[in-house]
C-alpha cells in the first residue's frame, strides 16, 4: 500500500471516529447550530422584517436578504467542535498513543478537519431548508443550494482553522471556548442584516472591508439568482488565505507536539 493510500485510510479512520463521537453528542454537534441560526432569523424577521417595505430595499422580503447569512451563521455558531475534541485527545493521551503507531500524526488533523467540513453540511442544509420554507428566495434551485452549502463548507474549514491554531498554541479549553463570540462582530459588521445603502457611512466602510462580506455577498447572489462571480472569487480567495495561515501555524504547533522525543 502506497504512503498516500495509507494516509487516506488512516484519515478515514479518524474521520469515522470523530463522526461516531459527534453522533453521540448530536445536540451540540448538529442541533444547536441549526436551532440558534433559525431562532435568530425568526426573531429578526419578527422585529425588523418590515424594513423590507422601506424604499430602496433591494429584495422582495427581509428574509431573502438574511437567509444566506443564516446558512453561514450555522457554521459560526457551531465552530470549534473538533478543535475541542483535539484538546481532549491531547489531555487523554490519545495523541501520544498515535505516536507509537505507524500512522502519520497529520492524519489526526486531516481526519478531524475533514469531519468538520462534513459536519457543516447538516446544519447549513437544515437552515437553508427552513429559510426556503419561511419564504426565502433560492432562484438557482438545487444547483444553487449545493453551491450555497459548498460555501458554508469552505467557511467551516477556514474559520475552524482559528480554533485549531488556538487549541494547539494554548492547549487550553477555555481559550478555545473564548473564541466562540468572535463571530459576533464579524457578522454584525458585515452586510448580514442590511445592505450598505442602509448603513451610516462609517458602518458601510467597515462592512465593505470586512473579509467575511465577499463570501456572504457571493452566497446571497447565488440564492437571489444573479451570481456575483467577483465576490465569489474574492471570498474563496480570502477563505483560502485564512485557512493557509491558521492551519500553517496550527501545523507547526502540532508537529512540535507530536515530534519524537
Amino acid at each position, binding site marked *: 500500500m502506497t504512503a498516500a493510500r495509507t494516509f487516506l485510510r488512516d484519515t478515514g479512520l479518524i474521520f469515522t471516529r470523530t463522526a461516531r463521537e459527534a453522533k453521540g453528542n448530536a445536540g451540540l454537534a448538529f442541533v444547536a447550530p441549526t436551532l*440558534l441560526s433559525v*431562532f*435568530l432569523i425568526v*426573531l*429578526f*424577521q*419578527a*422585529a*425588523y*422584517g*418590515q*424594513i423590507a*417595505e*422601506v*424604499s430602496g430595499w433591494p429584495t422582495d422580503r427581509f428574509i431573502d436578504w438574511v437567509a444566506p447569512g443564516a446558512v453561514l451563521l450555522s457554521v459560526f455558531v457551531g465552530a470549534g467542535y473538533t478543535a475541542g475534541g483535539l484538546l481532549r485527545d491531547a489531555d487523554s493521551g490519545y495523541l501520544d498513543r498515535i505516536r507509537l503507531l505507524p500512522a502519520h500524526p497529520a492524519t489526526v488533523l486531516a481526519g478531524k478537519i475533514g469531519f468538520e467540513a462534513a459536519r457543516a453540511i447538516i446544519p447549513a442544509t437544515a437552515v437553508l431548508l427552513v429559510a426556503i420554507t419561511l419564504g426565502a428566495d433560492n432562484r438557482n434551485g438545487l444547483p444553487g443550494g449545493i453551491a450555497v452549502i459548498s460555501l458554508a463548507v469552505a467557511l467551516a474549514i477556514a474559520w475552524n482553522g482559528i480554533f485549531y491554531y488556538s487549541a494547539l498554541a494554548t492547549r487550553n479549553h477555555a481559550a478555545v471556548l473564548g473564541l466562540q463570540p468572535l463571530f*459576533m462582530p464579524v457578522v*454584525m*459588521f458585515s452586510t448580514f*442584516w*442590511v445592505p450598505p445603502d*442602509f*448603513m*451610516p457611512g462609517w*458602518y458601510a466602510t467597515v462592512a465593505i472591508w470586512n473579509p467575511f462580506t465577499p463570501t456572504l455577498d457571493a452566497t446571497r447572489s447565488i440564492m437571489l439568482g444573479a451570481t456575483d462571480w467577483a465576490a465569489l472569487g474574492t471570498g474563496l480567495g480570502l477563505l483560502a488565505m485564512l485557512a493557509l495561515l491558521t492551519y500553517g501555524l496550527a501545523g507547526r504547533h502540532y508537529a512540535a507536539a507530536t515530534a519524537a522525543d
Partner: protein
Amino acid sequence: MNESRNVLEAPGATAGRAVGLVFRRQATAALRDPGPHFVLPALPALLMTVVFTALFDRIGDAPGYDAGGLDRSHAGGYDAFLIPGVVMLVALLGAGATSASLAADLRSGYFERLRLLGARPGTHLTGRLLFEAVRLLPGTAVVLGVGLVFGGDNRNGIVGLALVTMLVAMLGMAYSGVFYTVAIRTTDPQTPFQLQPLGLPLAFLSTALVPLGVMPGWAETIARWNPVSPVVDASRQALTGDPWAGELPGAVALLAGIIVATHALASLTLRRRLAGS
C-alpha cells in the same frame, strides 16, 4: 468573617443582618471577578445599541410604524425609541449571575452547614437578589450613556434616568428568581449561561426594539402578552414622555408581583430541596 460567623451562629440574629452579610459575600466575590458580574451584563446591550441604531434606523420609515407609537416629530426618531428598550437587555441578557454561586453552594454542602448553624437559607436568596439588582447598575449607566450619544433622548433629566435604572434593577430581580429556581433544581453552576439565551425572545418579542405596529400578527400577539412590554413602555415614557403617566405604576406593580412570585417559587424549591437532603 468574624461578624459573619457571629450573626449566623447567634440564635437571635435578625434576618436583615443575615441578608446584609449574604449581600456582602456576593459583592466581595463579584469584586474579585468583576468581568462576568459587572461588565458582561452590559456588553450585549451595548453591541445592540451601536449596531441597531446604525442598521435599523430606517425602519422608522416602514408602513405601520406611526401606529406603533413612534412620535415622528421626535428629534431622535427610531434611535430615541430604541434606547429605553434596549437598556432592558442589561437585565434580560445579564441577569442571574449569582445563581452560579447558589448552585455551587448547594453542591459544596454549604447549605447543609448553614442548617447546623440555625441560619435561615431564605436569607441567601434575598441577599443574592438584592445584589443582583445592584450588580446591574453600572452596566445600565454605561448603556444609557452610550445610548444617549447614539441618538437616544432624555427629556426628563435625572428623574428619567433614575426611573429607567430602577426598572432595569427590578426587571433583573424579577428574572433572577427563574435562574435561582433552575439553579436549585439542577445544582449546575452553568445555569446562568444556559438560561441567558431566553432573554433574546423576551426582548425581541416585546416592544423593546420595535413598536407593535410593524410586527407580524403572531409576534404582535406574543408582544402584547409579554410582561417585558409594559416595563419597556414605562421606560420609554420615563425618558421621552410624562414619567409619572399610567405606564410607570403599572410596570412597577407588575415587576413587584413577579419578584414576589419568582422569589417565592425559588424559596419553595430551596426548602423542598433542603428538606429532602
